[in-house]
């Protein structure tokens, strides 16, 4: 049976959550490899979304709806993918540092990563430094994302990086920072790898960085 993976891309761009889930299920019933469904169906769709978002032709609620659709499709697809196929996009641990209860920016970034096909482990708000270290050890992500909205909680980010060094796992992950008071300078100062000025740009900045490392 022939199956048009382009249709998966198109449906993803329209953000129809249920339709995309159904289509992904149908694709799995054919002899198409699950990896191809991801790489030739879903990811090209998300590429289109991120390009349109960047060009200002798509708006946040639309992009997040697509991300939601992507997440739904991945639920169906993930059990059929091998470790290496899964690793294609990457894994990110993301959280807000201790003392800070603000989460919308961090959650938006998490949704964007999920939409881009990442396996996202969102450890939540007000997380002590050890929780970040523990999650990195446990999930072995390519990326660790930290956010802070308060100038008073920003120093916790540097402390987490130091804890990663002490645990000898700093080199295993790219550390990306976000949050309104955070700047590129601050990120460099405390030894982070990346900084995203807004939730929408985090995925692209990370993608470029990871590709440059390969």
């Amino acid at each position, binding site marked *: 049976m022939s199956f048009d993976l382009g249709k998966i891309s198109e449906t993803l761009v329209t953000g129809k959550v249920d339709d995309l889930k159904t289509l992904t299920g149908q694709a799995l019933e054919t002899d198409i490899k699950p990896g191809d469904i991801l790489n030739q169906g879903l990811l090209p769709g998300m590429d289109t979304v991120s390009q349109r978002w960047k060009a200002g032709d798509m*708006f*946040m*609620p*639309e992009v*997040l*709806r697509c991300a*939601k659709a992507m997440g739904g499709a991945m639920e169906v697809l993930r059990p059929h993918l091998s470790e290496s196929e899964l690793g294609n996009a990457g894994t990110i641990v993301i959280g807000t540092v201790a003392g800070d209860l603000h*989460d*919308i920016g961090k*959650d*938006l970034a998490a*949704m964007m990563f999920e939409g881009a096909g990442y396996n996202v482990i969102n450890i939540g708000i007000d997380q002590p430094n050890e929780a970040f270290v523990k999650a990195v050890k446990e999930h072995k992500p390519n990326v660790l994302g930290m956010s802070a909205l308060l100038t008073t909680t920003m120093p916790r980010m540097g402390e987490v990086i130091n804890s990663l060094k002490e645990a000898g796992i700093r080199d295993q992950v790219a550390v990306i920072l976000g949050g*309104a008071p955070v*700047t*590129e300078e601050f990120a460099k100062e405390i030894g982070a790898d990346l900084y995203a*000025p*807004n939730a929408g*740009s985090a995925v692209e900045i990370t993608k470029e960085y990871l590709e440059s490392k390969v």
Partner: protein
Amino acid sequence: MKINQSINMSTRFRVLSEDQIEEIFFAALEVLERTGGVIYHEEALELFKNSNAVVRDKKVRIPASMVEEALNFYPRKITLKGRNGKRSLQLQKDTVGFGTGSDLPFTYDRKTGERRRTLYNDVRNAGKLVDALPNYDFFMSHGIVGDAPNTQTYDRHQFLAMLEQCTKPMVVTSVDGEGLEDLWRMGCVLQGGEEEFRLNPLFVAYIEPISPLKNDRTAVEKLLFAAEKKIPAMYTPCPSSGATAPATMAGMLVQSLAETLLAVVLCHLKNPGMPLIMGGVTTVLDMKKSTYSYGAPELSLASAANTDISKWLNLIMFSTGGCTDSKVLDEQAAAEQMMNLFYAYLSGANLIHDVGYIDHGTNASLESLVMNEEMMGMVRAFGKGINTDDEHMALDLIEKQGPGGEYVTTDHTFEHWQEWYRPTLQDRSDYETWKNNGSKTMIDRVNERTQHLLDTYEADPIKDDQWKELKKIVDDADKRHA
């Protein structure tokens, strides 16, 4: 279902109470009875002589009963239609249309940065922008065509320049009665004859008396011609408070209303039922610089009050907004234009003109037209008011998402964020994104947008046979005045 509810479907704003409006109206009637107005036009004086008015030499005094009677005869609704029949504009109570001003002698040259005479092509370009930008509802020439072959026929050339790239309804100025006749004939060519023009006029004729209480020959000539042919026309006083009107806002409003009511009676005597529109550029004379101010807060205040009066009188209103005294498009321009745009809109005036004026009504700027597009959008978004029905109160959604939840991925957000205003020129990005995109200021973005529109936009063209007919009317006028 509840009873005894009242709901604001839009934002509400008014300056004058009904009692105050009545006071101003009675005072204006008193002015017409006691002080009267002078008229430099024989036919108009004859019309008054044959009525209950009292005419002494050129001065006419009018009894209140004549005003009250005449006021019953004016339409409360006019539908203007653009030259291709598509861009129609309803003029009726609290329906607001925005448009440019007209006849600016100078233009800010985009290439040299210098101020120079306005030319045919500048008017054409202004029309193109007005056609392209959705918040503009009607077009006045913006500039005055300075390169027409003859100053006695410039109005016909100007109308051609306006028509070339703009399909929206218009407000036109004319040299004299003969000029207005030619413009009207051109309008009839485009609308499909005199009768069609009467039902769906292409334009409103702009006519103004001279404050205080003076009516010159050409203005009255135009007014009587408009009345005869039932061409929509406004007789719009332009008093400067403290110089050609009392220094008090109330005094200026009284006198300006008396000037309007004189035209109300005159047009009624000429031809009952002509579509007369009330107007007024009511502002102050700057006492330091002796200029007629387009950016004074008093302009906004008096104009909004004037609109309150027009609604009480059941007259369609021509008002003022989006204009500034600043010589260039800068911070002063933005502040003044936004203020008078905002209050003119909230007042509910039907035709808000002078949008984009800089340099107190002497200098034309295409960039200013583009910047005002954004401001009109913002103002309109504010005017929408707040819907408080169940769907908009979102009680179930608040419960569903709960403490610490988020709304950005909900269907409710997906549907309703589209009700918000979407800026096209304002920058709301974070600092780094802004910096990475070249640290552009508002003026930089306005410039880019202006150039882009001028380079890429083309309006529906005028049909060849119609264009020939229009040209013939203009050529004939040039021959007559050669």
